[in-house]
């Protein structure tokens, strides 16, 4: 139990720290590498939530493919001499920071206020869970984890290909469009494969 708590705080620190590093580094390559760190941290957070398959997919898709693309493009550009990494206007910058801060305060405040509601929901589902599965576990949350999350890959697949099948098909169409669009962009004027 105590290891779970320690794990959460450690991961929260890693994720938020590397998230901040993404926007604070002036060298974009360092930003990208910190973002990789954040992605791996988020995958670990998924593991603490019991979503093992999602964590693996997060590693493969984000850390393994998307971020490699980012890092490759950055290294291709070789932007070591970049000096103006932040927006110029001081007043507009301050305004943006203030609005972001306000937004953060609102969201966190909302979450904290709504605590009672979510806890009630949680307990309700927990009751249902322990009714269906009478596993002798220490705490209720662990029962919950057993029902939904451990080895839920088959459940995930069933739900994805039955309940959400239209969304899935739409994603397929989207990916095709994206692939065509990206190739068209890359071959257009000024692109890497421009026709002169």
């Amino acid at each position, binding site marked *: 139990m105590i290891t779970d708590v320690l794990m959460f705080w450690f991961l929260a620190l890693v994720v938020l720290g590397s998230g901040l590093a993404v926007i604070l580094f002036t060298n974009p390559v360092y930003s990208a590498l910190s973002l990789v760190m954040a992605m791996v941290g988020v995958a670990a957070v998924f593991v603490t939530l019991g979503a093992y398959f999602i964590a693996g997919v997060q590693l493969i898709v984000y850390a393994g493919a998307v971020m490699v693309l980012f*890092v490759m493009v950055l290294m291709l550009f070789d932007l070591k001499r970049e000096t103006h990494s932040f927006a110029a206007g001081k007043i507009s910058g301050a305004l943006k920071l203030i609005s972001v801060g306000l937004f953060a305060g609102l969201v966190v405040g909302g979450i904290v206020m709504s605590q009672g509601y979510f806890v009630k929901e949680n307990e309700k589902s927990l009751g249902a869970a322990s009714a269906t599965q009478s596993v002798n576990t220490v705490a209720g949350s662990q029962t919950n984890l057993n029902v939904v999350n451990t080895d839920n890959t088959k459940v995930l697949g069933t739900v994805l290909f039955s309940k959400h099948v239209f969304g899935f098909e739409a994603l397929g169409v989207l990916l095709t469009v994206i692939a065509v669009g990206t190739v068209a962009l890359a071959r257009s004027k000024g692109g890497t494969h421009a026709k002169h």
Partner: protein
Amino acid sequence: MGNDAFEITINLIKLVAVFLLIVQAVPILVWVERRGSAFIQNRFGPNRVGPLGLLQLLADAVKFLTKEDFAPDKAIKPLFYAAPVFALIPAALAFAAIPLSVPLEIGGYVFRIQGYEMNVGIVFILGVSGLAAYTILMAGWGSGSKFSLLGALRASAQVISYELALGLSIVGVIMMYGTFNLTEMITAQQGAMKFHAFGYEITSRFLPNWGIFYQPLAAILFFAASFAESNRLPFDLAEGEAEIVAGFHTEYGGFKMLMFFIGEYGHMILGSSLMIVFFFGGYGLPGITVDEVRSWAAGVTDGAAGASVLTTLIHFLSFTVKLVLFLWIFIWVRWTLPRFRYDQLMDLGWRTMLPWALGNTILTALVIYFTSVLI
């Protein structure tokens, strides 16, 4: 991790042991590679230090450790020094998820001969080994040399291209076994060939129940893609000596270079182990189930603990023999085939292997659906 202090300690020691297994295998592999290449090319190879040149490794290690530790002037120091350290991590982490033998049962404790047990083992291994691309990119960009950068760009483009073929080629395998768990896969491959189709049970006494007989195309694609993933010949465009000196590790020398070496051999070991687990029955003996071995061991030794130890040892030996065979194939191919051209490499990855892997996936799905094949 475990229930009491003893179990936790053993499990931690096990993790270190799995890591050391990779590191310790590297000098032996280097020796085999040098002697084997000499054998293939009709040369002698290292044969001066010690019997058969075996102590050459020790001499090399001393040389690597005592070399001057330098960084190029234009290098970006943090990345330059971090890259070799990170080179070890992906292969070692992924290898720790592979079951090496039957669990050991001693006095109420059960120790898995595996770094850690995972239900989504395959997804985890693919994800972690995908992180290897960053090491290469960090090394290439951090060196501040154009040869390193070119090598790194080539290598990472190659790794992410072949990851697709690698991932897709094992989808058919996952569908056949119906699980992501490596131990369950190995259990499914025990004994003589036996499967259900159209409601009948089909058996063959001569063939083991191995994945290669159900998914031959996937096996070929997976093996080729794992060559590309570990940047070995014929896919070692990243280090094409004739074009870009030594690729991403041009600027590295001494022990830092050695760590890249360990990483590369780690990927070789990982690729071979996955090949064994998916297609060649894992730690199982061909045609013989674990239970048969266990009952034989119980007859030979006295006491449950002794039988368990003997069973574990036999299966570990079986895994090792298979691993050595595959590693030898890796070395054999390296000294037999020439290097691809870069456009041929991309062509092979995207226009040959990817469609074949997709076709294999669809075919497997159709066959499973219409004949209701069950292993």
